[in-house]
Structures are given as structure tokens and as C-alpha cells.
């Protein structure tokens, strides 16, 4: 599948109707989601035929993208039941089958080592401080091969240090820097800046 085609399919994913601000429910847009998954497959072969987990799956965009790129199985996890219902509807609409689990990443009820690749857009930690790092710790525990994740560019040095030193990543690399359009309710600074710089990371675990 071509990148353009993937992006256009993802345009059909219905996004949160009533996002819960405290859970940082902003959707991963088709532009970013398609690039993230396309790169994971075309540059690293981390999607096709793999077992993929979408942590904090929300409306399901990343997991659906993985399925469109021929992931063998995708498991989506979110703490919020409404988000999971929406993800379920989106899967039906796009005619893909995703496994969905309601759980918190803080207490992930998971036994290794079935998942190959984790894809996620964790909360950036603006509302729930430290959520980004909690997600990363959980992802690096779950992934057999690689983790693709988005983090604020301003946290780059910290992420790199902690991922390798504390969370057991064998490598941590920024693949590219992206502009992420964040609803105004999440603004970080006093100014009404809504377009923030975000890094697309690839971590390896083996």
C-alpha cells in the first residue's frame, strides 16, 4: 500500500467526539499516523506479519494503520471504555479486526513475549504528569523488537537517557521531528501555541 493511500484510509477514522481532557485524548491525525506506520514497515519491516500493540489506542488510528499494512495481529489497549467503543466502530468501518483490552498502562496485566512491535501516541504528560514516561516503560517491557512512539521534542535528552538507562532499551533514535496540532485546551505555555514539535522515536529492545 502506498503512503498516500494509507493516509486517505485513515481519514475515515472517526475521532473522539467528547475527548476527556484528563486522559489527554487528542487523536493522532492521519498525516502523522500514516507516516509513522509507513516508516516502521518500509524502513524496518516491523509491521507486516508481526504482532503489534497500540498502547493508549484511543480511536484506534495507529492500530488500524498497522492492520492496513498487514500486521498479523493488533492488540489495542486503553483505559477508557468510550474510546474502545469508538475504536471498535472504526475497525468495523475500515473492515479490520483489532483485539481490544480495557486496562491501565500503569498496571498492565501482561505476560511477555508475544508482541513484536509497539506503536503508540502516549499522553504527552501535560495533564497527567509523567504519563509519557509510564507509557514508555510499559511499552519497552511489552515489545519484543521495537517501539515507535511520539514525544515532545523538548523532552528529547531526558527520554533518550531514561529509555536506555532505566527502561532497558537497547537503542533509542529520533526518526524525524513532526508538527503536532494540539487542541488549545492542552497548551503548554502561556501563549496559545497549539502546534508543538514532536519527535517520532524508534526504540529497540533486543
Amino acid at each position, binding site marked *: 500500500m502506498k503512503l498516500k493511500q494509507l493516509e486517505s484510509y485513515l481519514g475515515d477514522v472517526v475521532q473522539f467526539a467528547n475527548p476527556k481532557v484528563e486522559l489527554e485524548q487528542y487523536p493522532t491525525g492521519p498525516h502523522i499516523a500514516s507516516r509513522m506506520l509507513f516508516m516502521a514497515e518500509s524502513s524496518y519491516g516491523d509491521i507486516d*506479519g508481526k*504482532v503489534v500493540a497500540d498502547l493508549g489506542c484511543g480511536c484506534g488510528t495507529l492500530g488500524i494503520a498497522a492492520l492496513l499494512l498487514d500486521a*498479523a*495481529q493488533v*492488540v489495542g489497549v486503553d*483505559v477508557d*471504555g468510550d474510546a*474502545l*467503543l469508538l475504536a*471498535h466502530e472504526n475497525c468495523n468501518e475500515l473492515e479490520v*479486526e483489532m*483485539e*481490544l*483490552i*480495557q*486496562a*491501565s498502562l*500503569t*498496571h*498492565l*496485566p*501482561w*505476560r*511477555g*513475549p*508475544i*508482541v513484536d512491535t509497539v506503536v503508540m501516541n502516549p499522553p504527552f504528560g501535560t495533564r497527567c504528569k509523567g504519563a509519557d514516561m509510564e507509557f514508555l516503560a510499559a511499552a519497552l517491557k511489552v515489545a519484543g523488537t521495537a517501539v515507535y512512539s511520539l514525544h515532545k521534542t523538548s523532552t528529547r535528552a531526558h527520554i533518550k537517557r531514561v529509555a536506555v538507562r532505566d527502561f532497558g532499551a537497547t537503542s533509542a533514535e529520533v526518526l524525524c521531528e513532526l508538527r503536532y496540532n494540539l487542541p488549545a485546551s492542552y497548551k503548554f505555555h502561556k501563549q496559545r501555541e497549539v502546534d508543538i514539535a514532536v519527535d517520532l522515536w524508534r526504540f529497540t529492545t533486543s
Partner: protein
Amino acid sequence: MRLITHNMLSCNIKGVTNGYPLGIEASRLETKESELNPEFLRKIFPKLEWKALRDAAHSLGLNDLPEHVEPSMLEDADFLKNFHHALLEVHLEEGALICPETGRRFPVTKGVPNMLLNEDEV
């Protein structure tokens, strides 16, 4: 929820040491056919807890998985068919997962297991 997912879920209530595998109470199952991919089955096989899969399949009324397995069986078409069916085609739509140590029930609704813990469980 399919049994591939069941195979990786465990109960993580604080203090529980034997939270795996979860028992299954099934009130509604659905079977959805999917394409058999022998290569995927061979790759996933060594990562599975076979006993957990077999017992789970059993509790869903699927009795075709052998107790003892060896990699050579992955060349056998009948074995692959039964393995594929149990692992990927049967969905638990309504029911519950049960912690083997505490008996705590995690409800499964519309195919989604709710593994959220209460405050006094974390």
C-alpha cells in the same frame, strides 16, 4: 477477545503471584473465519504457553488441541487448522476472565475484557 490475547493476559492485582493463566467463563462465543497463515503460526508457537492455550480452548468447548506438542506438528495440516481455529478464529464476546489465585472476575463485554483494577487492588 481471541485466545491469542488470553495467552498474554494475566491478573496483576497487587500481591498476586500466580495470576496466570486466567480462567474463562464463556456466555457467548463468536466464530469468525480468517485466513490460515502457517508461517505466522510457526513463528508464534514457541512464544505461547501451550498449556494455557489448550486449557482455555477446552473451556470454550474446543477439544482438538493435543496435550503434548512438538515443533514437528507444525508441518501437519490438521494440527495447523485446529491451532489456527482455537488461537485466532474463536472470539469470546461475553463472559469473564477469572484470576486463578483470588477468583476475581474480569468481565468481558462486547469482546473487550475489562482488566481495570479497583483502588484497593493496586
